[in-house]
């Protein structure tokens, strides 16, 4: 998206000048962000904004340090929240993959099943996963089962949909050729179906994890009993603790970015970009 497109810098040959121009690019990228933070800080310091409603960045950093509690004797509260949130999102994501990928392959391979189920899918796909929360709340009450269940549904449909699209995108000819050469079902799966569906599958996984993470926030606000970033933000509302809310928001954004770029970006580079490198745009997606 636009986000990843850093200012255009012509690639230069010399090592020193290249790193210098990258530095300049980074500086021009950070400049507006720094300016915004300074402006924000100044507004609060000068008393133009109410610090209890809009705390200055320095106060948010101080609050984050306090919550992180790196030198204290007790456990770090912020890390607990982050850990619990990550655990829930990952559990939901893994469960969703375990169900959605095999189902996606089955539906992608069988035209009849796909045609029969596609109306159902197109009805369920745009349905917000959070809408299921009340049902889970009635059935299981507040707690991890509800949260993971809702995130599971959030991750399930993107993964399923991309898997189906990936499998359906494989040309019939490739399958015929390999089969006519005497490949068994396992060979077919390993040599044709899996690599063929992989680009769509990986983007589906990425989307699924992103959905799981985004759904998690809402689910934790609605149904968490104790820990989790969403719970932290929503509970801070009762104490008018806006600094804690902003700490939570920053953590959510940073972790979301890390998952998307550090984990799935690497996965994409290791697999799709290496296998389908011809004609694909690298870097910018």
């Amino acid at each position, binding site marked *: 998206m636009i986000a990843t497109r850093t200012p255009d810098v012509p690639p230069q040959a010399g090592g020193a000048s290249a790193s210098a121009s990258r530095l300049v690019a980074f500086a021009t990228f950070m400049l507006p962000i720094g300016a915004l933070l300074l402006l924000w800080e100044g507004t609060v310091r000068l008393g133009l904004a109410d610090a209890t409603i809009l705390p200055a960045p320095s106060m948010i950093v101080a609050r984050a340090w306090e919550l992180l509690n790196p030198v204290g004797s007790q456990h770090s509260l912020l890390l607990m929240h982050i850990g619990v949130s990550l655990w829930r999102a990952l559990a939901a994501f893994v469960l969703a993959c375990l169900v959605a990928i095999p189902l996606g392959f089955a539906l992608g391979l*069988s035209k009849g099943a796909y045609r029969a189920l596609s109306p159902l899918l197109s009805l369920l796909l745009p349905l917000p996963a959070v809408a299921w929360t009340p049902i889970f709340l009635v059935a299981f009450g507040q707690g991890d089962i509800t949260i993971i269940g809702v995130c599971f549904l959030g991750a399930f449909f993107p993964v399923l949909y991309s898997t189906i699209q990936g499998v359906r995108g494989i040309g019939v000819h490739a399958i015929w050729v390999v089969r006519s050469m005497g490949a068994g079902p396992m060979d077919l799966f390993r040599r044709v179906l899996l690599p063929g569906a992989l680009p769509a599958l990986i983007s589906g996984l990425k989307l699924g994890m992103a959905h799981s993470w985004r759904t998690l926030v*809402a689910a934790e606000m609605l149904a968490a009993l104790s820990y989790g970033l969403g719970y932290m933000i929503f509970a801070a509302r009762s104490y008018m603790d806006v600094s804690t809310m902003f700490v939570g928001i920053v953590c959510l954004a940073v972790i979301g970015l890390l998952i998307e770029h550090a984990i799935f970006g690497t996965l994409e580079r290791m697999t799709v970009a290496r296998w389908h490198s011809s004609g694909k745009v690298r870097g910018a997606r």
Partner: protein
Amino acid sequence: MSTTDLASAKPLSVAGATPLLRNIFARFGVIVVLLALWELAARLGWINTFLFPAPSNIAATIWTQSGPDGNPPYAMPMHVLRSMIRLLAGIALALIIGTVLGVLIGMTRWARMLFQPLISIFMPVPTLAWTPVLLLLTGIDDRTTIIVVFIAAVFEVIYTIVAGIEMMNVKLFWVARSMGASRLQIFFRVIIPAIFPYLITGLRLGTGYAWRALIAAEMLAASSFGLGFMIYDASEYMSTNVIYAGIVLIAVLGYLLENVLIGRLEAATTEKWGVQSER
């Protein structure tokens, strides 16, 4: 697992039967069969009817809640209407602000340098994480939900518009400029028509996100009406009928919004202006 499926998939069109009936059955057959099974299982007591009330009961709930006997009277239309108003208000805001920002980013160097970093730090924040902050800033009223809808939709609008401008042919500007068009004229006569199809695509994607965000925001931040409020409120009274009724409405409305309404609009604009391939 794959071999038999693939073999049988090829010569499907041979079988007779009237094509229209087949088509209808193929489209809705599975849904109808599933609903019938569900109804049967609920009637025969195979499943917990408290957690899975029969489809006929859910339909009856929608019917009574839509009429004067609802609680409050005409509850369903009121909830739907309120949700739609919030959605429209938020999307209208996103369209206006998103278009302006998108055109600025696409056309001018300073806006690109200024806004791109800011957008890239705000975009990864899950939209709903803003809800508690907005609640403190504005209180529990429509403003919170409308702003959440706005945030959910605006990035998609900006993104597609910037992409649209990048796809534009520079010669169009040269021609317009050389004929002495003013900036305003260029904006309304050249840029807006050129990015319009992209705007519609952005609108469709943005509406999808906005609809999801709206339901969740209403669960967190609405005090009286809205589909999200309705289902969350119903969960506190354990009335699963109402929850399922709400989910059905949310699914159907979401489908209609994204695919039928805006899909039509998109098809019409692509037909009229012809996107992508030419520019």
